[in-house]
């Protein structure tokens, strides 16, 4: 029982990385843009968060001068700005210059991973980052050892932010007029254009917003999940690809992503809790990826109408080409 509580707690903590990434990616895919640059964008988000921490610590003469909440707010802000900037490159190339989305995405991933590895070495200092990571953790303070508080209340602020963003995104896409327009842009841009929706503006806006959300996943992994210890070597890229897969596995539904991310997170952490030998743990490493493949196949086989991707996903829109 105790084990189960720890597994669930860990699964939620790990899943948050995927949740940010996949909700951000879902927002972009709803606008018809399959962004394979998400791993790179998450790296930029991590770098932005690190930049925020560095900025706060560099300008604080003593610890009291910059309170904990300032670290959190500034790094969230810069994480979103950096990630959006990367998203802007993608948006300009795919929307304005109508380039192939997959190719731009791959280039952006190469770029983003390089940018993070290169610049993170310049601003990283383990003491500053480890100290700052304390501000990101344990939003509700010491919550005791009951199973409920352990599983649901022992996390950092970004975990709750991720869940709130996922629920809000779901409601926004389904219930609001702008959300309806957004879906129209992703399903059939020519029709959306005919009723007066500004396709480029929608695509730009939601690629930038989606990128900002994805970027927080990188920040979360660096500052909360690993306590600021792995900034320069964080394998954010691999998590980014899992996030992209999670979008399809959860059928473009952000609320479902919450549970999907916990499942993926659980698969990632569970090997540490099972009675496995060291070599079996190594073999277990491939299970999350196998499960992802199985989910991809099963979803295709179910083949329901509301499980399908936005109809014009991956295509660029050119008004004179009808």
């Amino acid at each position, binding site marked *: 029982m105790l084990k189960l509580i720890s597994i669930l707690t860990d699964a939620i903590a790990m899943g948050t990385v995927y949740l940010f990434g996949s909700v951000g990616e879902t927002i972009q895919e709803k606008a018809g843009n399959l962004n*394979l640059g998400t791993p790179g964008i998450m790296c930029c988000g991590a770098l932005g968060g690190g930049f925020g921490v560095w900025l706060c610590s560099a300008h604080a003469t003593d610890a009291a001068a910059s309170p904990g909440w300032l670290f959190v707010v500034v790094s969230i802000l810069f994480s979103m700005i950096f990630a959006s900037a990367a998203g802007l490159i993608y948006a300009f190339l795919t929307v304005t210059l109508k380039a192939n989305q997959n190719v731009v995405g791959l280039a952006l991933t190469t770029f983003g991973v390089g940018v993070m590895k290169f610049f993170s070495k310049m601003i990283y200092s383990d003491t500053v980052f480890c100290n700052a990571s304390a501000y990101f953790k344990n939003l509700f303070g010491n919550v005791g050892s009951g199973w409920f508080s352990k599983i649901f209340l022992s996390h950092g602020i970004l975990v709750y932010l991720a869940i709130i963003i996922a629920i809000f995104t779901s409601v926004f896409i389904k219930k609001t007029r702008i959300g309806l327009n957004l879906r129209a842009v992703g399903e059939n841009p020519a029709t959306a254009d005919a009723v007066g929706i500004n396709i480029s503006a929608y695509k730009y806006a939601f690629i930038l917003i989606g990128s900002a959300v994805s970027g927080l996943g990188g920040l979360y992994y660096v500052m909360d999940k690993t306590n600021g210890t792995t900034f320069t070597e964080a394998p954010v890229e691999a998590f980014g690809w899992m996030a992209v897969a999670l979008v399809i596995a959860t059928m473009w539904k952000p609320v479902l992503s919450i549970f999907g991310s916990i499942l993926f997170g659980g698969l990632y952490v569970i090997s540490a809790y099972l009675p496995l030998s060291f070599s079996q743990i190594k073999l277990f490493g491939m299970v999350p990826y196998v499960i992802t493949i199985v989910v*991809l196949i099963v979803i295709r086989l179910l083949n329901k109408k509301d499980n399908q991707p936005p109809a014009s996903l991956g295509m660029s829109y050119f008004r004179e080409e009808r």
Partner: protein
Amino acid sequence: MKSNSEKIAEIKEKNPQPEQASSAAREPLFHVSKNSVMSRGKALAIRGCSLLAALIITGILGVLLVHINPFRIYKEIFKGPFVDIWTMLQDTALLLCFALAVVPAFKMKFFNMGANGQVLVGCLAAIGVMKFLTPYMPNWAAILLMLVVACIAGVIFAVIPAVFKAWADTNETLFTLMMNYIAIELVNYLVFVWDKSGSGTLGIVNLISHAGWVPNIGNKYVLPVIVAVLMTVFMTVYMNYSKHGFEAALVGESVNTAKYVGINVKKVMIRTLALSGLLCGILGFVYAGAVSHTVNAAVGGKGFTAILVAWLAGFNPPIMALVALLVTFLTSGTQYASSSLHLGSTDFASITVGIFFFFVIGSEFFIRYRVELTARGKKVFKIKSKKGGEV
């Protein structure tokens, strides 16, 4: 009594003036239309400009980082690749092989992201033979066996996603991507099992006996180059002159047309991916037998760059060779510059290559589309001449 003109003026004053207001709000600055023909020279000039722009940005970045004359950075970038010209040739050859291996699938519009994993398992299988079976057979037989098992492993890893794509129409991009990570985890596991020292890395296999190493032809860098040349010739012939290549390209153009002329799309899909996997397997063998003599995740590291190379060259093998050379030149040049000028880590190279790709991908727009200033655009930019082909 007001005159008619006064009345009109009054009405205009009360109501917003529709034609002016709407044109100011709606008419864009540029008019974009499809470009049907563009001379080769002009297209080449546009691509050259994009390369130049990428270099300028790199220079600016370098200046911001270390405050030195940008021309010193360029000098180092152009000096770097020639310091070790054989390594650059080998890297070019390897990148080109990767790119050639993804071509058949991409011609079919099958987004095969799995070249990394396919090469990696090919290399893994060959290393397995090298490590355990070389004592029991003559060297030539061991090398042949390595080639065969590497090809089989590559083909298996490529065919699995193809079968599911053909059978259930699964998303091949993510499927092949996940296969990459499965390959990496498989390598991690087997290296752990094979390596008795517990270091988690295999080290150079048969460092002393050289059993299973492909004998040097001239020097150790020649084999990848030869393989790359052979593959280029083969792929050029296969894609342009063979029936199989034609069928794959037709499936890529239109699945319905292919079905209409009686092509078995599923069969073509699986066969084409098997070829992709075969080429990856051969490349894996080259890594094991002549390049790395060991297996680790870095073996598959060129796969994504190779996709970009293949796409930029329009999947045309000889042009791919040029693009691969350019990308390798840029990578090794910036790596050299970043260490000789103390720009920080060599990750500077992946930033430069990323910027290069952004510019070249972006420049395709100006080749495919014609951009002209609209009447309003001319007003805004104060251009009076009729020439608006802003590039």
